[in-house]
């Protein structure tokens, strides 16, 4: 005995036929609500099954896709929509290799995009939703397509929040989420936003700033620090979906964008408070024109870096002279330098002082004492002991990475 099932294929705007629902048509309105700005329409039945298939399952839905070679059981319609949308976004980026997919939240502020390219569970979605609650248009909370000329393209997917919201969140934000809660289960919920609140698929907007985010429960009010452009580049190099592009290709694409793009760190306790505070700062302070002090120290403190690997440090009495090894590529950005030692190799990031050491060793072979003397004569604010300790450690790192080599006397 066999049972008959209904299979319907759907075409996605700007992608084409890419998903088949089998006995799962009740999922369609949920997907539509989760990505209201991205058209998914029935299409002619495909002889060759689309890459994404969803079956109704006794315990929910069963999904298969290129990224899920073993299939995946999903127990709720909202959860299934989320998984399907992840694969639809992947399909879009495979279909449009001219764009880079960024893993970030993105909101439009004064006709420019603020993007938050942080890692998972950093609060991207909450901050994105908080900007929506504060009246700003959302371009996405997970994926943004980036053109070669620095425009972000919205996919049309609504932000998705982890539920329940923490009680400590601002009452205004709680109310906004309650008023706009779309498809949800007990763990996650999509926000139902209109066209003014959520950019439709294909809408473009130039990038205006990179905003790295850090939650800190101890803060009484948000803090904003201007970072090096290298901080933004470093984050974008990690938070992207361009799995088949080399780091070198990516850095060459990102570099021209990052040269003129301000990068900030915002630290906050409450996302809604941060969004409204930042919006006021932007309006009053010319934030994008350099109204915030630069943090030239970078985000990783030296003591932490040193603690990580003290054992590597070069002996203090080492008298060998060192020079920079030939490297494939150097990319200066702001005060910093990004280096790729060999074709296809990993990227190294040198801050302002490491870059100074790099330039000195490129100029002539020096021993560590000569380096220390030069830095002590040029810079102020550090003891010889601490500079010596730092240079020993930096040289050790450079040696272990093969970026410097000893010179025979």
């Amino acid at each position, binding site marked *: 005995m*066999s*049972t*008959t*099932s*209904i*299979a319907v294929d759907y075409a996605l705007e700007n992608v084409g036929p890419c998903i088949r629902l*089998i006995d799962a048509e009740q999922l369609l309105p949920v997907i539509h609500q989760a990505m209201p700005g991205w058209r998914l329409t029935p299409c002619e*039945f495909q002889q060759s*099954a689309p890459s994404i298939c969803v079956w109704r*399952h006794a*315990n929910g839905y069963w999904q*298969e896709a290129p*990224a899920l070679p*073993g*299939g*995946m059981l999903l127990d709720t319609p909202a959860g299934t929509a*989320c998984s399907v949308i*992840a*694969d639809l*976004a992947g399909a879009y980026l495979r279909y449009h290799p001219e764009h880079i997919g960024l*893993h970030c939240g993105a909101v439009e502020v004064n006709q420019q995009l603020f993007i938050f390219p942080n*890692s*998972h*569970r950093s609060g991207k*979605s909450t901050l994105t939703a908080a900007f929506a609650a504060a009246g700003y248009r959302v371009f996405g909370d997970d994926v943004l397509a980036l053109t070669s000329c620095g425009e972000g393209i919205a996919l049309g997917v609504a932000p998705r929040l*982890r539920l329940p919201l923490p009680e400590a969140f601002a009452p205004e934000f709680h109310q906004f989420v309650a008023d706009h809660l779309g498809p949800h289960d007990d*763990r996650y919920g999509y926000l139902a936003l209109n066209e003014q609140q959520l950019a439709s698929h294909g809408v473009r907007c130039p990038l205006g700033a990179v905003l790295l985010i850090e939650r800190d429960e101890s803060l009484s009010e948000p803090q904003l620090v201007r970072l090096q452009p290298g901080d933004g580049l470093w984050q974008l190099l*990690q938070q992207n*979906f*361009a*799995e088949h592009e080399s*780091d070198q290709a990516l850095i060459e694409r990102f570099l021209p964008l990052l040269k003129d793009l301000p990068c900030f760190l915002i630290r906050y306790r409450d996302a809604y408070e941060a969004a409204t505070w930042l919006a006021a700062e932007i309006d009053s302070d010319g934030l994008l024109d350099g109204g915030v002090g630069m943090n*030239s120290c*970078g985000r*990783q403190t*030296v003591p932490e*870096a040193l603690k990580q690997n003290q054992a590597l440090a070069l002996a203090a009495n080492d008298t060998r002279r060192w020079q920079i090894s030939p490297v494939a590529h150097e990319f200066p950005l702001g005060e910093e330098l990004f280096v790729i030692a060999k074709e296809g190799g*990993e*990227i*190294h*990031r040198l*801050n*302002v*002082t490491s870059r*100074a*050491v790099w*330039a*000195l060793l490129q*100029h*002539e072979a020096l021993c560590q004492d000569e380096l220390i003397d*030069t830095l002590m*004569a*040029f*810079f*102020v*604010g550090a003891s010889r002991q601490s500079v010596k300790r*730092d240079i020993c450690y*930096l040289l050790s*790192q*450079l040696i272990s990475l093969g970026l410097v080599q000893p010179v025979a006397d």
Partner: protein
Amino acid sequence: MSNEADSLLNKRRSRRQVLASLGLGAAALYVAPTLSSMGQAEAREHHHSRSRYSRSSYSRPRYSRRHSYSRPSHSRHSHSRPHYSKPSHSRPYYARPQRSRWDGDAVIEIRISRLLPRW
């Protein structure tokens, strides 16, 4: 002044010029040198990644370990796909095999790693 002292002064001058060519002003505030490598950064950020080259992952639903999951006893590759028959009307139908792809007796847990959060 001896040649040796001249030479030392010239070396110091030339090294200052190297630093000045980077846009650094003399008497700039010392900042401890740092060197980060993308390999290290990726390992920190993406310990859930499926492959070394996976830079980031799309958000997927999160599951708790207390749930149990089952999938068809037959593997995806050995299981013959349902045969889709072209219907006379526009809506396509297919005949599901006698045993559906998830009605198997055996229960194979989906590896938890596949269900870990990617968000």
